[in-house]
């Protein structure tokens, strides 16, 4: 079988070196994991999740979660976190998704009133709705049933707001006018039911988007856009872009004075906006059109270096 010149010794040495090195790193890891308590392991797993290290989170949490009783106060967090890690670990595979679904369903059923149960149902909805890998079939109806379950089991909470947004999204994505209108009704009901919610800006701006770009009704988009502006745009870092869009829609809908107010905000409140000059130009045009309004033209700021 071997040639005459074959000598196994070099291969044996290499093999032992590899085993030796492997055992060194293995010892080090093993010692570290063994030293942690269950709570610490869960904490470490969650910490991995926080920095998007899903593989390490999965590895750590799958070590501790099976050891916990359902009655353990740490069980919902550990099981939910392990479900998230299984969902997002790489590469996305059917087995991982099955495991994630199983864990999230467990949380939804066993930790029935926990906030983690609501969150798990939302995740189950997203998993049903979205293809996580090629060949993963989306099931929008199933996703919708999960979102409705959250709305039923956790009404008038931040979780029901999230579920309403996701449910409205599934309706709007059909691009059918009737479904888009149904989505808008859902979102408006949610705004009314929780008028002080921190999600108000998100809900309102999405309604505005649906009117403006799905139904091509810029006039109807103005009120929700204004609501979002007053409540605070969800993507605060891009508030100037949202204001620019709002101003354009206002002009398209023939409401020049509202447009001038919005453009004014860009110049005054967002001195570093690249839309400052074009917004100011439009204010000048509008002021010429409505001289009786006495529109004040704001000045552009300069870069805040030097003194």
């Amino acid at each position: 079988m071997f040639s005459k010149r074959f000598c196994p010794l070099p291969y044996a040495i290499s093999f032992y070196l590899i085993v030796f090195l492997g055992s060194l790193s293995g010892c080090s890891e093993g010692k570290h994991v063994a030293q942690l308590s269950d709570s610490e392991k869960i904490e470490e797993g969650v910490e991995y999740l926080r920095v998007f290290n899903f593989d390490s989170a999965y590895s750590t949490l799958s070590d501790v979660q099976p050891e916990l009783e359902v009655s353990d106060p740490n069980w919902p967090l550990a099981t939910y976190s392990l479900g998230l890690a299984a969902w997002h670990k790489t590469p996305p595979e059917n087995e991982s998704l099955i495991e994630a679904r199983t864990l999230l369903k467990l949380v939804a059923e066993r930790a029935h009133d926990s906030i983690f149960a609501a969150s798990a149902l939302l995740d189950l909805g997203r998993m049903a709705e979205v293809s996580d890998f090629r060949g993963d079939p989306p099931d929008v109806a199933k996703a919708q049933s999960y979102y409705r379950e959250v709305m039923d089991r956790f009404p008038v909470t931040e979780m029901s707001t999230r579920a309403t947004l996701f449910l409205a999204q599934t309706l709007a994505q059909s691009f059918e006018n009737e479904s888009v209108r149904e989505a808008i009704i859902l979102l408006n009901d949610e705004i009314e039911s929780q008028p002080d919610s921190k999600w108000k800006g998100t809900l309102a701006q999405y309604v505005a988007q649906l009117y403006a770009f799905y139904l091509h009704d810029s006039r109807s988009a103005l009120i929700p856009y204004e609501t979002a502006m007053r409540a605070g745009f969800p993507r605060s870092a891009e508030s100037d872009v949202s204001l620019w869009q709002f101003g354009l829609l206002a002009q398209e809908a023939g409401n020049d004075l509202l447009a001038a107010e919005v453009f004014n905000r860009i110049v005054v409140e967002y001195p570093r906006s690249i839309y400052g000059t074009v917004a100011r130009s439009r204010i000048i045009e509008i002021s010429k059109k409505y001289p009786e309004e006495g529109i004040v033209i704001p000045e552009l700021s300069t870069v805040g270096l030097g003194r």
Partner: protein
Amino acid sequence: MKKTALKFNSNWIACGLLLGAFVVSAIRFWMVSRDLGEGEARGEIIRVAHWQLEPGFREALQWAIDEYNALPRVKAAGVVVEQTAIAERFYNQFMNVHLISGTAPDIAVKKQSELISGNALASFYAPLGTYVEKPNPYNAMEWQIADLPVKLAKFLSEAPWRDTFFDGLEGGFEEYLSDYYAIPICTWGGLRMIYNLSILEDVKSFALEQASLQIQPEWLQTIWRSESNEDGYLPEDDAIEWLENDQIPQTLGQLILYCSAVNALAIYEGVDYLVPIAGSSYIANDVIRLYYDEFMSGIWHELSLEQGKKLSAIEVLAGFDEGVWNFETPMVREYFSFVSVMSAFYPQGFLGLDREQAQRRFVLGQAAILSTGGWDATSIYQGIQGRSDPNNRFEIAIAPEPMPVEAERWAEILTMRASEADAKGGVPFAINKQSPNFDWCVDFLMFISSHRINEGFAARAGWLPVISGAQPPESVRGFLPTTEGLPKTFSLNLVSGNIPSSIRNTWNAQTKLLATGDVEYEEMQEDIVDVLNDPRIGVRRAWISTMLDLQDKSRANQRSMSVDRLNAILGSDEAADRERSNTYLNLIEDEGVHVQRWWQEMYPEQTYPTY
């Protein structure tokens, strides 16, 4: 059999090499571990990596480091900060390897690479969101420069660290992760044109002399814009008025006159080396590029498929398919005319020249103009001042690219410059998550980005500072970003990274060939149109690749939403804000839903293309 085994076997060479490599690696690993691991754990060395090898930067950074190392608190802890400068060419490779192996420097300039991008960044660098909301202790009154204006002094001492940056720390913000991951220490500023004032004087007097001849030379006659010469660039009277003063070009017409005069003078005096513009393959040296967005912004409203949204690559390409623009569109045709005109002012074979060669040409007085950014300013000043013969030294002027005024060519297209209002902090330092000295790293970044130190750093480096109220050195004031102008998001941008490489590369290559005179406009147009119309590599494919790209982004966004929701449940208000931000993005762009909608509205009878 026994005899065979004892005989020399070439496999032993491999074994010996393997053993040798193992022993060397083991010793090296032990030494590095001792230095990086135990040493740093004891609080001895904090390494700071960057790739800024320009003159002045390292010296200025070393000054800031020395100031920090001399602090009694730092000395008492035995902490020493050191810098490691690595050439840009190898920087990504260096960081990728060391971040994975756990041996990366404690602090490093964050540079995007395939490995370290999107939310993968969070695996390697530490988020700083919780720190930037509190005031920077090194901005407290006792650390400040004496006699600062009261309002500024109060602001610096009380404002959150984030707000003390002139850009609100946008230069350190990661949109994907909705958190701050880096602390910039300077400002890039805008690209500017640098003029050799000695050449300016000679050339203007030469041009004035030529213009006063009874029969003007042909090169000058072609420049005057009149009813009989619509291809001219500026009216003669305006030009003469400018030639009589000592100003640098204030308008595009004057710039073209000036460059043409430099060429004419070079021929007249037989100085082949003198060129108007020190062009090279380095993009910052390309004056033509300075005008790209300005030329291409005229039809943003027609291209936009969703008013108010930043113009995307697919909207630009769909606009071609829909006939919104083509190569007969005035702004496109005129842009390429401009390319042909301006490239005649570059050195021959400029595409074979690099950044250093362009700089050297300018410093040696062989080019009238150099376009570049503030980061090259110190090199240029030092280069000029370092000329051995003082007579060869010259003054320079720095200015933004001039725009045409009424009655000049292209005045109707080039209405204003592109805005630089969104200029961000540069050289963003991030903290390695694996650093055993995280708190000291944050402390050092607070120190270097404090008002006093940042101003001192900028003065020594000859770079623009990043902290509000910090004085920029006089030498680089000209690079300060200008807030007035068009949004770059209006541009029909076929050179951005979002355009499929097949189209972008063809556009770039053909533009260069036109610039070098190797193709005519019609030939160039034909080649680009062929690619745009090719179903395998053109616009149709762009629809497919755009969708795949958006689906990938949706996955990344979903991961962010999951993590932020978990953090929000666990009590983090910042995470709750991030979750709302990412959820909104998901609502409007999930799985490329907006692009699917655009497709459906444009081609209602056709299903979305797939591979």
